[in-house]
């Protein structure tokens, strides 16, 4: 074992596994957790589709059905879509920018544990018949104390608290890691597109999440201590919730979609064997999507009786987001047409599926963004179709492309192509069979969120078709799970760079060692591995006896200083447990906020308590006067 192995390895056994601060181990858990929630939320969807397959069906009653769709939506949005993108980023971003961990490793562990406990809480209470019942956006006053008595909505509101805290933690990690920990020479204009996308996403999270946390806190206090924020009888306002929720909720869909754009910008050029066309344009498009996405939340409220001029403003803002999105698509098509012939492996199949599906979702998005049309289409099955076209087509297809693409890096084994094809075709066909008919159902007057419909409505045939499609998608996910399990058991070994891709994450072993890179490469290109004689230089002089990372300057990634990272610790887990007790306690009593903060405080003190070992590690990387000259030389080599 080398010195680096000793320094970065976790201690063996259960304690080592629970205390780890390795971004890869945490991210793998994070990804697996989100996928389990994805599968569970998908099963809920299959129950709903079975109920709707027949008119006047009584498989599930309204009480269960309302919980099913509320839980399906809440879990897919808060426990799958947003966190899975962050989880993938927490794995990939440090590798892509060429560093050894994320910026705040213990906070990273804390964020994951909090997410896990929040998700477990949600599915546990759902199993106990205390699941959310007012939809994933919980409109008041339906979700208020008068019309949703009991604790169902309180648990929903705490689900928001859990997941948003975790999301904010992930966002902070990504921003600091991208800004300050890039390998020397990786200027902002050489930053990989996925890292750009995640940087933009992280900033969106930072600005969007506080709005929903405030809104859900208002809801909690309305329900728990009888504040009247949303009660019109006491001067409250029911539309206040909608504004605050959608000010978060619309950026939210781009928080899911922008990382997927980043994935495509990584995968597609690797298969076209061409550097992505229009790098600067793609970056500007991502940033403008982020800005625009905060200015169009009102298109969710076109039927609330707003002044027409206001509606026209938000219509234009909504429709204009098609420009940066269109630019991305044009750049990718240009990359394909000017690159080499594409080998149709599973990742690129999913990317092609993205084009076919997402562009339809984009078109219906333009329709829904138009205030006149929206008044007819809003809250009908047309919207259900649209949102699945953009979220599954726009995010889940790229995500599956990403799984197949980066799986060999993460596990060292190559997923089966044959099962991958089954996975893709079942998903692609099943998806369209399930969701395309819903456009027509919406135009034929079927409102969303109905637990049944009468035979006289004439909606039965298309609903049955949709149900068949949904089960095909279910089968496809099953194939994916089989593929993963079989590959882990006896899959073929993948090399370091099975796709011949250009990104830095492919420069290290598969799976990467705990310290990611034995030598941090100096980057001189946007596609470093496609350059001749990579790497030209590597970083020397980083202390190996303690876990350190090289901190570089924000814009030009010139070396700045060496930072010591904290050691593995159980405190983040304990702090997350204490926070969980506090959050769940406040469902029942406001006093939980007071008494619950005591254990949180204790665990945080333990977390930050200065230890002798830490002091020793600091001393070890101190630069003493007689070594100073030596160090100077070491850094000097970087610019050589």
């Amino acid at each position: 074992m080398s010195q680096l192995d000793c320094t970065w390895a976790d201690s063996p056994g259960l304690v080592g596994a629970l205390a780890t601060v390795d971004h890869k181990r945490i991210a793998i858990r994070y990804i697996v957790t989100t996928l389990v929630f994805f599968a569970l939320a998908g099963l809920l969807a299959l129950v709903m589709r079975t109920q709707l397959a027949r008119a006047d069906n009584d498989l599930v009653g309204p009480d269960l059905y309302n919980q099913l769709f509320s839980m399906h939506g809440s879990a897919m949005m808060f426990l799958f879509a947003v966190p899975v993108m962050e989880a993938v980023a927490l794995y990939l971003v440090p590798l892509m920018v060429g560093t050894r961990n994320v910026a705040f490793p213990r906070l990273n562990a804390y964020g994951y544990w909090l997410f896990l406990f929040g998700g477990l809480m949600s599915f546990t209470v759902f199993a106990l018949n205390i699941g959310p019942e007012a939809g994933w956006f919980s409109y008041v006053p339906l979700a208020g104390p008068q019309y949703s008595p009991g604790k169902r909505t309180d648990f929903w509101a705490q689900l928001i608290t859990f997941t948003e805290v975790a999301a904010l933690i992930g966002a902070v990690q990504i921003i600091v890691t991208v800004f300050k920990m890039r390998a020397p020479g990786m200027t902002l204009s050489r930053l990989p597109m996925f890292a750009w996308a995640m940087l933009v996403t992280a900033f969106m999270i930072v600005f969007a999440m506080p709005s929903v946390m405030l809104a859900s806190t208002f809801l909690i206090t309305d329900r728990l201590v009888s504040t009247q924020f949303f009660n019109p009888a006491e001067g409250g306002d029911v539309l206040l919730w909608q504004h605050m929720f959608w000010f978060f909720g619309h950026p939210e869909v781009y928080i899911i979609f922008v990382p997927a754009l980043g994935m495509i910008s990584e995968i597609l050029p690797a298969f076209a064997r061409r550097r992505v066309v229009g790098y600067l344009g793609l970056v500007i498009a991502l940033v403008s999507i982020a800005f625009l996405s905060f200015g169009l939340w009102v298109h969710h409220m076109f039927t609330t009786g707003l002044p027409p001029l206001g509606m026209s403003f938000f219509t234009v803002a909504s429709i204009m987001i098609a420009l940066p999105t269109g630019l991305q698509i044009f750049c990718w098509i240009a990359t394909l047409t000017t690159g080499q012939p594409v080998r149709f492996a599973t990742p690129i199949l999913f990317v092609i599926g993205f084009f076919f599906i997402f562009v339809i979702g984009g078109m219906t998005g333009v329709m829904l963004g138009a205030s006149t049309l929206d008044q007819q289409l809003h809250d009908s099955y047309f919207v259900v179709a649209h949102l699945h076209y953009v979220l599954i087509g726009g995010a889940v297809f790229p995500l599956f492309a990403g799984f197949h693409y980066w799986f060999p890096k993460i596990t060292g084994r190559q997923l089966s192509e044959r099962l991958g094809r089954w996975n893709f075709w079942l998903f692609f066909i099943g998806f369209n069979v399930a969701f395309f008919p819903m456009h027509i159902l919406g135009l034929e007057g079927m409102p969303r969120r109905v637990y049944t419909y009468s035979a006289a409505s004439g909606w039965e045939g298309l609903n049955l078709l949709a149900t068949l499609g949904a089960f095909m998608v279910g089968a496809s996910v099953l194939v994916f799970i089989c593929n993963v399990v079989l590959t882990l058991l006896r899959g073929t070994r993948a090399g370091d760079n099975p796709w011949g891709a250009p990104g830095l994450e492919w420069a290290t072993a598969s799976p990467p060692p705990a310290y990611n890179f034995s030598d941090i490469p100096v980057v001189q290109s946007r596609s470093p591995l496609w350059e001749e004689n990579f790497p030209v230089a590597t970083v020397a002089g980083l202390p190996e006896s303690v876990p350190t990372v090289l901190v570089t300057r924000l814009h030009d990634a010139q070396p700045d200083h060496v930072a010591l990272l904290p050691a593995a610790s159980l405190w983040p887990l304990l702090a997350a447990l204490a926070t969980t007790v506090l959050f769940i306690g406040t469902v029942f009593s406001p006093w939980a906020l007071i008494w619950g903060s005591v254990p949180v405080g204790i665990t945080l003190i333990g977390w930050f308590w200065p230890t002798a070992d830490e002091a020793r590690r600091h001393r070890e990387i101190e630069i003493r006067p007689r070594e100073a000259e030596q160090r100077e030389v070491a850094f000097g080599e970087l610019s050589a």
Partner: protein
Amino acid sequence: MNHTALAPGGPFAERIVDLFWLFGVVAGVVYLIVIGFLVYGLRRRPAGTEPVMAPVSATTLRAIGVALGVTGIVLVGLAFSDFLGNRALAHVPPDALRIRVTAHQWWWEIEYQDPLVTRRVMTANQLTLPTGRPVVLELGSRDVIHSFWVPSLQGKKDLLPGYTTTLALLATRAGDYTGECAEFCGFQHAHMSLDVAAVPPDEFARWLDVQRAAAAEPETDLQRRGREVFLTSSCRACHAVQGTIAAARLGPDLTHVGSRPRIAAGTLPNNSTNMAAWIANPQAFKPGARMPASPLASDDLGALSAYLGSLQ
């Protein structure tokens, strides 16, 4: 039941459906072009697997620029056509008939306005409109947020507690239309329909006269017995029948319930069997509905249902 947005019964819905087809055709053409280029990019067969590192050619950049420019122009055009459409929908005609619609969990209370209070007409879950005359609905809610949606006549509009919203309707084609509550409103959101009948103006005037009249006097012994049951059991705690002492407004006004096509906001067709079964146990058809079961003897139930059926 006519509840499709694609078969409009008046100019408002027609305006929207025209716009839908405009957007749809544009979207279809753009889709085919994008997919065409994608397939072209995927099917080319030049030689080699070496990574292409050369900067992109000016022609390619120009092509991207042109595509972006065309997208921009198309989007501006679509936004402008939407702007015009929205103005048309928001226009409230001055001479319109005004109807107050109040949503409840899970039914529609409908009141035809008149300057003279005694000439106002109260009904539930059923809207009769004169063809050719604009109507303005004043929308409100007694509990949670609902949304009024008759796809064949107009887009939807929310009914919000604490607000009054308005929606203009105009039916030019006589016929029956169906509407639904479009905003999730709790347990029985699925059973909150509305029957709309668009009739010629003279027929509408006759209908309004009938509705203005107090409830019909029972004609048979059975119906008289039914009225007695109605007035002596728990029915009148929530319901009103004009011309009797029943005047509660918690549930739908039943003065002319016999003339409505369906009961319980579209849950069941209106006939005496369904009416009796509904009164005996509403929860069997609409679990969670605010109406409790009425443990009446079966002959009382039959009489009651006969009486309600006679309230034409």
